[in-house]
């Protein structure tokens, strides 16, 4: 059973084709890595899958619901952490979390339990007297992740979750991502740190709006006889562009 099925998805902004007939599928409970340089079209794909953008053509199903005609159902089942921090800087972390708990319509008991869990697991306690804008970047990223997993979504979209975060915090991030996957969440994550691709069960490399390679990290490396993911990525992109 697939959690995400994408078929020839295309997004055009005027003359510019951001996403060009992309087809892929993500199995349930999988960590699916989306690799690519900035501007490759990763974010545009994710935003279409979250119902933030309408595709120009093609279809996609998220958790079995059509992203164009069943947006409301799609949104109920996903969590999204955007590349750009987009929570409220003038509120405290807890006030932000409470807002999303309300928007995801959590019942009072579940709300309390989840907020407790998240503030402990993401080490967000002791920050609630502060406004978000006074917190360091790492905290903000964790808070954003917290708001995205608050309602235990079936599918989690993480757009560059570790950019700007120091290495030890990145490790913690991946630990949490693994934990979520173990709970049964399907995860689609974009990154341009190639070593992080090794954590994924499936990867897909995007360049200039197209998917140019797909498979397990091992398969992708073997494709171009590369030792590291970094090496494989460079070779694949070079080949695709020539």
């Amino acid at each position, binding site marked *: 059973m697939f959690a995400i099925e994408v078929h020839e998805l295309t997004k055009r902004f005027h003359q510019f084709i951001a996403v060009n007939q992309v087809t892929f599928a993500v199995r349930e409970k999988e960590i699916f890595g989306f690799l690519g340089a900035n501007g490759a079209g990763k974010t545009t794909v994710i935003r279409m899958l979250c119902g933030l*953008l*309408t595709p120009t053509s093609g279809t996609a199903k998220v958790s079995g619901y059509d992203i164009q005609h069943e947006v409301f159902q799609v*949104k109920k089942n*996903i*969590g999204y952490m955007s590349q750009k921090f987009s*929570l*409220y800087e003038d*509120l405290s972390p807890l006030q932000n979390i409470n*807002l999303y708990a309300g928007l995801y*319509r959590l019942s009072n008991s579940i709300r309390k339990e989840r907020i407790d869990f998240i503030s402990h697991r993401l080490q967000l306690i002791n920050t609630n007297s502060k406004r978000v804008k006074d917190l360091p970047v790492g905290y903000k990223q964790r808070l954003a992740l917290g708001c995205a997993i608050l309602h235990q979504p079936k599918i989690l979209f993480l757009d560059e979750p570790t950019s700007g975060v120091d290495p030890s915090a990145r490790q913690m991030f991946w630990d949490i991502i693994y934990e979520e996957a173990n709970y049964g969440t399907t995860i689609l994550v974009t990154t341009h740190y190639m070593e992080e691709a090794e954590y994924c069960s499936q990867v897909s490399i995007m360049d200039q709006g197209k998917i140019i390679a797909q498979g397990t990290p091992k398969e992708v490396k073997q494709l171009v006889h590369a030792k590291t993911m970094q090496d494989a990525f460079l070779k694949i992109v070079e080949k695709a562009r020539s």
Partner: protein
Amino acid sequence: MDFRSIFAISHKEILHILRDKRTLFVAVAMPVMMLLLYGYAIDMDLKNITVGIYDQDQSNHSRKLLERVLANQTFIQTAHLTHYNQIEQGFRTQTFRVAIIIPHQFANSLAQKKQTPIQVIIDGSDANSANIIMNSISASIQSFSLEFFQTQLNTPNIPLINIQSRIWFNEELKSPIFIVPGLIALFLVMVCALLTSVALAKEKELGTLEQLLTTPIKAQEMMIGKLLPYTLIASIDATLVLLIGRYLFQVPLKGSVFALVVYSAIYLLVALGMGLMISVLVKTQQLALMSALVATLLPTLLLSGLIFPISSMPKALQVISYIIPARWYIEIVRGVMLKGINWFPKNAFILFSMAILLITMSTRKFHQQLKKGELTT
């Protein structure tokens, strides 16, 4: 619709407002301060009009005539002229705005029962006041001339038509009583539109809307959630300005308080709806504030009948005035407060329709943008 989403949005919005004390202060204090300022400044009563007098006759009669003109507080004499040159001089230096010239032979001419001219020159650069000044002076002189005529004939009871005019609803023709209800309408629409105009525009600009839109929230939940806290602030504003109008400017309240509250609530909804519409259409806070100001301030000031009577406007402007919410609300406020009329079904219906139209149109537009993914960049 889910009340939890509405509550979550409203709660967040209230937190924003409480965090930002300056905006809150502006929202509550601005209409109050503006009402005080404008209420006292826009005074169209004529008082202390400066007069220069050139009395060539220096007779008993000429003095009596001048006394009559200067009797009420409308005019004060600021110059005593002895030469014609001084008249033009006086107007140029603004020593006076009116000159009265009583010719030599004034008393003699009256004694001989001849037509006796005197000259009144008025500064016409302010046409409106000039008109009122002229009427006031001619009235004084007419009454003087009538009395003179009666004493000369020794018959105090000549059958003449005597106008017994009465002015209703504002007996002393006080400006504040006329102006303040209009100002209430103006400042309410301005503040409410300004407040709500940034509600969505701010989130678009900061990018926080994107995250909100990945949750299962519906357009109408978002709109209602956003509107509720601002409705509360707007109601506080309305209460304050109505109280100031009533007790500080002594605008009478002859009709029912309940009626006034109900009509004002409908009017506030229109104003909030205008702000919401702007918020849906623009993408930055700056643009939202500018649009809200442009959409409310001048149209309301000029086309609502606040100062200038709608009946004397050109036909085209009269038609435009139909879509100005304040036009309908000012009629109501003046009616309820000054005349004690509580029943304004037409005005209430028009305002209510405007509110419904604005709010549903902006919700629908927002819903479309949401579906098309136009809200994020």
